[in-house]
């Protein structure tokens, strides 16, 4: 990171090119730069850029160029993301947004319902043609197993309760 003649030359070259470029654009817009206040196409973003560069220049000038700057850059990005998160959070917390996403969901369901029905019918027919069980049939079997397991469990519970009652009655 040491200052070298090559670094200075590079900055000089960049500065010169930027200056010449600005003048060329000004000439192109039909203005004479030294005579009249020129139209400034960069007026909008210049203050922002200025401020950014000033900050960085100050940072460089005040402290040695150390990796601490990267940490500060990371902190800046974290804050930036946090600011966006808060802004989005505020937007998403409005009635309008809630209504909007529900409209989107509604539209999705409206589009999906007939498609899903048609697709299910097609698949069902295809499986029937090949003499294969359909998804609904397999789900039905699985559901029956779940119900059976539940029934067995209820019987176990009842049996357990009866046994406990009997044990309680038995003389010791």
């Amino acid at each position, binding site marked *: 990171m040491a200052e070298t003649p090559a670094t200075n030359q590079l900055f000089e070259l960049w*500065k010169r090119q930027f200056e010449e470029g600005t003048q060329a654009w000004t000439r192109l817009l039909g203005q004479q730069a030294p005579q009249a206040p020129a139209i400034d196409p960069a*007026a909008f973003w210049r203050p922002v850029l200025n401020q950014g560069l000033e900050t960085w220049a100050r940072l460089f*000038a005040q402290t040695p160029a150390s990796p601490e700057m990267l940490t500060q850059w990371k902190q800046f990005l974290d804050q930036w993301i946090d600011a966006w*998160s808060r802004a989005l959070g505020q937007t*998403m917390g409005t009635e309008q947004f809630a209504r909007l996403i*529900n409209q989107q969901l509604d539209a999705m*369901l409206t589009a999906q319902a007939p498609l899903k029905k048609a697709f299910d019918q097609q698949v069902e027919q295809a499986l029937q043609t090949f003499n294969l069980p359909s998804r609904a049939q397999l789900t039905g079997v699985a559901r029956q197993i779940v119900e059976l397991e539940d029934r067995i469990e209820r019987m176990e519970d009842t049996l357990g309760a009866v046994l406990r009652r009997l044990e309680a009655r038995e003389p010791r």
Partner: protein
Amino acid sequence: MGQERFSDVVERFTNGYASAAAAAQASPETIGQWQVELDRNLKRLQNLHAMLTSPVEPRTGQTPREEIYKKNKSRLYRYASPRTHRTPLLFVPNLGISRPYIFDLLPHGSFIEYMTGQGFDFYLLDWGVFGPEDNDLTVEHCVTRILPRMVREVLESSGAPELTVLGYCMGAPVAASFLGSHPEVPVRNFINMAGPIDFTKVGLFGLWLAKDRFNVDRFVDTLGAIPADLVKAGFKLIKPTMDLSTSLNLWWNLWNDKYLEGFQALNKWANDYVAFPGEFFRQWVRDYYQENRLYRGELVMGGRRVDLKTITCPVFVVGAKEDYIAPPECVRALVDAVGSRDREYVELPGGHISLIAGRGAAVHCWPKVAGWLASRS
């Protein structure tokens, strides 16, 4: 400033830079720091390359356990522990949304490992991954059929006369519904970690799922089950910048192998979403989110009214300051809703997951929970 030439600004910048560069040249310490940063960048690139070309499947859930009971897709696991506390602990997590290996993510970064290390006889109820055959499963079924059975199995397996119930996230209101409708259950303590109770204060999900906007019947009737991708979309939407900040933090810490190991495990979990059974979702949204029946004492399950005032055991409630899924105010509501005399609420830094996984959880949350419980077990 408007008329200042841009090149002047650049010149001032370069002047500043030049003097800083001179200062940097004079400081070997700064050069050393840059060297470290350069090494980190090389390591970042190496790790990124390894991540992309030969991804490693993180080994989650390594704490030894045995399956005690299974009921349909649900499993009850008991974790190995030195057991210095008599009262067993039944952990009731959320159903659907995500898998429970977040509670036993990695060695030295696991809630279950921590609690068993503290001598608690730890039982985990894994609700399982439901299929279309389970679409008729309701919250009521979980409360009146699954939970009573699991409690009985815990008591039988541990040989203890009482147990502690710890509900996390959605597991807390489900467990509260169970305890509020089954006063005969010998529960010694009840802990709610980031579980919403007063659904009028539940934040964005509450707003989006409000009755006048969200037609849950149409939703369930059309889709059957709520697909995992839709659940994922909902959770991504609630914090849209999450992926961006996760990526930024990953890049920043990519040189750190330990961080990377944790990231890969957490990232695996964070993208492993689970579908909701249709009828469960219908009842969950209607009774809890839209009508707030649990908090209002209007919930009836298995013919019994759910009355939170019948919960009289010691209650510990933990909320997270930046929890956007279950904001602290809706979690805290349990403290005032129960009939217990021994009740406590703590609000910890971080978000919903920060209570259960990560460095913050191990520092701020787990010792608090274990400390509160130890003297009552």
